[in-house]
């Protein structure tokens, strides 16, 4: 197990370097000159020259990359060109927001997805199964951002029930925090709920066919006990792995959801930074999400190996 983890982490290092080079060169190839925007409406040539010098835009791109990578190794990801805030600080500021959104979305997804999956497997072939399947597919097919717009129109603009934007930290006012976040979390959670439902259903189906469920039933245990205690518990193993892997989907979904609901999180930060050509911010975020993503994958693999000893013999 330890050698497996060690090997995975070692192979992750070139991947991370690749990501950072990839993103760095991509950005510097982007059309549009951030200095022109930064120089202000007047675009004073003297100011432009000073800014180029200051932010090393005159150096060759490989040199710029090495300078950036050197600082990054020492934990300095640079500053935002737009507001001069250190990137690391920005990430620290935005991370809790997106995590709260993702966790709330996940909770909603689990509350909907797992019961629906169990029910649909249990009632396989009936109209309940069919409805659950079609609903799940619909959840997968509806564009997140459109669902968000429609909810804003209905719940905020027409009915005035929930705020259409903003963020209140959980620590400041928990109730208001949840009120503001519930709609975006629902939007983000629907697609995840659908994926979870489908995985739970297929896991439950194979567990329900297994010998120990048959044995449990033969022992005359109550159907509910069989379903929850024996079947679901075993079916949850692969589902937990899937949840780890859904991390990436949550992040990608958060990008648009945060844009629609004006939530000051990671996703909004990265989209705005791409549009503002705020190089250091884009670079820092992609690096962080990349590392997080790879480690989530390693964790998922490790979990899978622990839960499924057969895998490691292959």
């Amino acid at each position, binding site marked *: 197990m330890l050698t497996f983890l060690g090997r995975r982490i070692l192979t*992750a290092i070139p991947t991370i370097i690749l990501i950072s080079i990839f993103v760095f060169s*991509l950005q510097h190839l982007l059309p549009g000159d951030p200095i022109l925007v930064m120089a202000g409406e007047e675009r004073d040539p003297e100011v432009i020259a000073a800014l180029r010098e200051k932010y090393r835009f005159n150096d060759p791109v490989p040199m710029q990359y090495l300078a950036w990578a050197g600082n990054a190794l020492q934990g300095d990801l640079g500053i935002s060109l737009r507001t001069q805030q250190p990137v690391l600080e920005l990430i620290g500021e935005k991370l809790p927001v997106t995590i709260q959104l993702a966790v709330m979305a996940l909770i909603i997804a689990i509350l909907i997805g797992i019961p629906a999956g169990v029910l649909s497997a249990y009632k396989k072939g009936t109209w309940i199964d069919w409805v659950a399947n079609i609903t799940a597919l619909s959840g997968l097919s509806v564009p997140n*951002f459109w669902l968000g717009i429609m909810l804003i129109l209905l719940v905020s603009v027409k009915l005035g029930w929930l705020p259409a934007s903003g963020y209140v930290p959980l620590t400041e006012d928990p109730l208001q925090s949840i009120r503001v976040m519930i709609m975006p979390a629902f939007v983000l959670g629907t697609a995840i709920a659908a994926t979870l439902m489908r995985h739970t259903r297929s896991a439950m189906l194979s567990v329900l066919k297994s010998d120990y469920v048959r044995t449990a039933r033969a022992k005359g245990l109550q159907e509910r006990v069989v379903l929850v205690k024996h079947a679901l518990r075993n079916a949850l193993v692969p589902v937990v792995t899937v949840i780890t892997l859904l991390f990436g989907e949550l992040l990608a979904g958060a990008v648009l959801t945060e844009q629609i609901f004006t939530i000051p999180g990671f996703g909004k930060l990265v989209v705005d930074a791409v549009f503002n050509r705020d190089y250091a911010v884009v670079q820092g975020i992609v690096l962080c999400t990349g590392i997080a993503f790879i480690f989530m994958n390693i964790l998922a693999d490790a979990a899978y190996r622990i839960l499924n000893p057969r895998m490691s013999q292959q």
Partner: protein
Amino acid sequence: MTAVVDPQVAADPLPPRRRNRAWEKFRRSPSALLGGVIVLFFLIVALLAPVLPVPGPAETDWGAVRKAPTWAHPFGTDEIGRDVLSRMIWGAQASLLAGVVSVLIAVFLGMPLGMLAGYMRGWTDAVISRFTEALLAAPFLILAIALAAFLGPSLTNAMIAIGLSAMPVFIRLARAQTLIVMTEDYVESARAVGIGHVGMIGRYILPNIVPPIIVQSTLTIATAVIAEASLSFLGLGQQPPAPSWGAMLNTAKNFLDQAPWMALYPGVAIFLVVLGFNLLGDGLRDALDPRDH
């Protein structure tokens, strides 16, 4: 958002003789048929756009700006007095084209790379795998946004960006399938009698990886249609005055209160097309699944 083929299903190599039974299974699945009908409907609408009796998608009417649906304009008019129905029909072309072309890009780049990695193994595999992981580690949409911004906003560039972002899934799938095929007994014996690379690939590998690739492609088209809409929604896809459903939603967002119909119909259309491809993909997967449930 990214539906991935169940690895166990995809992992089973598929001898060609099962095809006819697959068609039988597909035909008997109501949801797959429904998906097929939905996709076919939008395909026909998109192809018939030039001959359908609707106003041109760029025809403006200053007297009817943001007018609610009427008989003359069944889906209402937009912010500069164009017929929303007509723009929906023409927008279907953009959406379907984006879905299909970007997946073709992903397949035709990803499949050879994956096969190469699985066939050659060694350092070729290591390089391709690291590269794939790097691509996978940046969330799909962020990657597509960055690529689309880099290439400059246009429908073509959005298709390239989505295609490149979707490529890793196909690399992985093709690689995994190739690896499995290569360990089959009949392949080992074929290799022993000295069949060349081309023969190996054409005779054994391709037939085995094409079915799962078709299933994955259908599901990825669904993802790609949403991705195109998302990019256009952010202003990075189809450019005005050409219509696309995502671009229509981008504009509609500013008129939610006064003209909700502008936001309603394009969203429903995206939903239906994506649902159609997802149903179709599911149906294909079940039909091509060698195991009987």
